[in-house]
């Protein structure tokens, strides 16, 4: 039975491989080939010799590494708190921490700037504005959810009795965590960390707006050459540098993630005891880090002149003269795109995760790596690639409505895969064998054992995919679209490009609605599992 099943899973790899090949590998290869064809070998040599590029590469790598370490460090207590809480609280926490995901960089930067001023951190002895610290802080703000949700959900499924045994045998709390819990969490931490790393690695707006005019990363350099200078050969050479770096780093992370898979049965949360003080400090810190910028945005959305009121919210249903549709339509468009992108990401991602865990041969490693690459690839590379690769029948897809949700799902799929794989890996094989011995067909084993157990990972990944799509801005801007299909982030950006207090207030109101919509949607998606929540 095992062999048939593996063969079936390997055969189903055609779906994710085909999807990735058509919408990522082929476009990116085409654009790089075309770009390098303009004299890219020369450009590549020049580039690697230039101080500016070396600085950008170095800065990109180290700020992404530090952002990742910081995010994991700040978010692990949150993941632990999530794992300890009751299922309903877990769902609410998971929805809450997802909110920063959909906030456009300009809005967050504005909120940060105001907080820096209020806390006296904009100038003076401790200055955050236009420093690398502002970049790091913003990366923690945006990526906190990735670690808390991925690691927290995994942690909740760990068997707490192992910790209890360690404690009984005399290990202290710190030692138990270091030597028992942490090693078992490693696959989930590696999965989350690699996503955080790639997000920080390709971060664009945060670096430009918060980092000040002197900071450059590979991502901002690609944009500079491709868009501002129309120097496609240098841009392509930079994109190759980015791709090579990303492949190397993801391969490393995947190695880490694969080491020592652990099998697990049922979750016993009792093993996790909370320290009141630690919990309070963690809660307060997170509330400040995530909550304050959000509160600033909410306050701004309620400000009308020198009073508070709901005027900005009421105005969202009326079309502004410079927008092709009212903001409410933009929210509707975003919801539709996000629903479609999530469906695609779920379908492709679930199959991919099964192949990565149960498939055979090199295919699974290649797929695992390949599906993660879109996260670490510049929106310019993907956008321009689709533009020139998918331009002839039967593949003249560059202007179809579907290309936007497909582009969004490219970013969503790695989330689904990365949250499902660690969960699938630790399913106890004896469960599956027992089912088979009792006469269950391979399909039934998968339906009744694997899927329910992997279900939570799947839904956590799905709501990520949803949130990513709702908040996506960069790639969408690169895709030629009908103006009236504008998304909520695009409408928000257009409002912020317009002088006048009224439009600014409306932009903030739209940002708040966007946050609400995502929180509700995440809650709804993750409530799907119903009563069997909390155990695997």
């Amino acid at each position, binding site marked *: 039975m095992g062999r048939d099943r593996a063969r079936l899973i390997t055969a189903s790899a055609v779906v994710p491989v085909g999807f990735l090949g058509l919408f990522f590998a082929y476009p990116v290869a085409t654009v790089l080939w075309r770009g390098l064809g303009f004299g890219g070998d020369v450009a590549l040599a020049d580039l690697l010799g230039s101080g500016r590029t070396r600085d950008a590469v170095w800065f990109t790598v180290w700020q992404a590494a530090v952002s990742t370490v910081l995010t994991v460090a700040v978010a692990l207590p949150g993941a632990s708190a999530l794992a300890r809480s009751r299922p309903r609280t877990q769902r609410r926490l998971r929805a809450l921490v997802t909110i920063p995901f959909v906030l456009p960089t*300009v809005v967050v*930067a*504005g909120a940060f*700037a105001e907080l820096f001023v209020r806390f006296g951190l904009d100038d003076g002895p401790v200055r955050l504005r236009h420093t690398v610290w502002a970049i790091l802080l913003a990366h923690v703000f945006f990526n906190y959810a990735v670690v808390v949700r991925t690691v927290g959900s995994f942690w909740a499924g760990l068997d707490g009795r192992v910790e209890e045994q360690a404690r009984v045998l005399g290990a202290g709390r710190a030692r138990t965590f270091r030597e028992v819990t942490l090693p078992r969490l490693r696959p989930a931490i590696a999965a989350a960390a690699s996503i955080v790393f790639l997000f920080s690695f390709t971060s664009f707006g945060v670096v*430009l*707006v918060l980092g000040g*005019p*002197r900071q450059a990363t590979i991502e901002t350099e690609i*944009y*500079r050459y491709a*868009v*501002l200078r*129309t120097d*496609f050969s240098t841009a392509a050479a930079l994109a190759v540098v980015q791709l090579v770096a990303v492949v190397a780093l993801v391969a490393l992370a995947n190695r880490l993630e694969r080491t020592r898979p652990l099998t697990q049965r049922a979750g016993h949360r009792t093993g996790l005891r909370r320290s009141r003080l630690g919990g309070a400090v963690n809660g307060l810190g997170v509330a400040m880090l995530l909550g304050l910028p959000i509160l600033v945005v909410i306050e701004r959305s309620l400000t*009308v*002149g020198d009073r508070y009121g709901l005027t900005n919210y009421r105005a969202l249903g009326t079309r502004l*003269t*410079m927008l*092709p549709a009212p903001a409410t339509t933009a929210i*509707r468009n975003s*919801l*539709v795109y996000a*629903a*479609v992108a999530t*469906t695609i990401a779920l379908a492709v991602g679930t199959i991919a995760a099964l192949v990565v865990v149960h498939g055979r041969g090199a295919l699974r490693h290649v797929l695992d790596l390949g599906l993660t690459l879109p996260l670490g690839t510049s929106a310019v590379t993907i956008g*321009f690639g689709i*533009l*020139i690769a998918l*331009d002839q029948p039967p593949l003249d897809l*560059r*202007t179809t*409505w*579907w290309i936007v949700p497909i582009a969004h799902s490219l970013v969503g799929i790695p989330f689904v895969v990365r949250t499902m794989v660690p969960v699938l890996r630790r399913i106890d094989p004896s469960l599956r064998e027992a089912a088979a011995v009792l006469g269950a067909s391979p399909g039934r084993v998968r*339906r*009744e054992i694997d*899927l*329910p157990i992997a*279900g939570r990972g799947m839904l956590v990944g*799905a709501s990520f995919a949803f949130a990513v799509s709702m908040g996506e801005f960069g790639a969408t*801007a*690169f*895709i*030629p*679209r*009908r*103006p009236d*299909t504008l998304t909520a982030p695009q409408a928000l*950006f*257009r409002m*912020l490009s*317009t*002088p*006048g*207090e*009224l439009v*600014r*207030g409306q932009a903030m109101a739209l940002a708040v609605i966007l946050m609400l919509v995502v929180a509700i949607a995440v809650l709804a*998606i993750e409530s*799907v599992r*119903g009563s069997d929540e909390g155990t695997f």
Partner: protein
Amino acid sequence: MTRSTRAFVSLLATLCLAASCSDDDAEPAAPPSPDDPVTITLLTHDSFAVEADLLAAFTQETGITVELLSSGDTGQLVSQSILSAGAPLGDVLFGVDNTFLQRALDADLFAPYEAAGLDRVPDEFEIDPQQRVTPIDFGDVCVNYWTDALPGPAPTSLEDLLDPIYAGELVVQNPESSSPGLAFLLATIAGTDDWEQFWADLRTNGVSVTPDWESAYYGEFTSGGGDRSMVVSYASSPPVEVMFAAEPIDEPPTGVLLDSCYRQIEFAGVLAGTEHPEAAGRLIEFLLSKPFQEGIPEAMFVFPVVDDADLPAEWAVHARLADDPHLLDPSDVEANREEWTDRWVEIVLG
């Protein structure tokens, strides 16, 4: 899980229903038209806006259905069009301005077309003698100030910006990443004797640099609660401040330093390789028509190029344009842009 899957699918279905999830409304049905029905595509940037009934009237009159495709800003639009020149995305392109024009012309993006109605466009706007592009709108990029927040009298010349009384008051955009930032750099190149010295002095006087207009106007300028009273923006910003004031106001809170203005002109052109050159030409003429031109200020916050278009009331009262704006030849801009911006980076950020 079966139950949950079903629940998830129905959740999606509900979402879809709520949002009428279908591709149908992405394809507007072509209305029956009097003569020779044809559909053409207008490729433009995300700042393009037009009243839907104006386009519908055009279709009714000519039988030409216009589909709009927009992506990004002017820079993205031009580089995308150059990259896809072999298989153009549309039949007409609107939105290339005089700072990017030469690049588009060098890439042979356009087929010449002499639009009827050009006689209503003053000569100063007709830059390309070969008629490959047609001017549609224009605007000035100028230093704006928040009148009540100025530490001294309103500045009247570029040199005034160097006055120590305005130390730490000005915020500009990086010309490497921002269109108004580049325009202002060009204004200083055209409008001062020694632009490199001018920027060195501005730096001494505490100029701040942001990557884009949004972080300058809302991040650091008084308007968004910032502590700088002068910002590089547009000559049209004061009337827009009135249009979108939280409470109705009679006077804009901002003023314009008219000596600092660089003129940006936006063009449209028939894309080379179109299968419908005639219909494409008709669309260019539509863009020059009085109804479209009169809608330009409130939709795109720039000015109509034809001399017979009336301005909206707020604009007629509050909009100021430079009598003698700074302007450089598009070919000069293209030839020197990288050198100038590289030099600017060394002087201001180095």
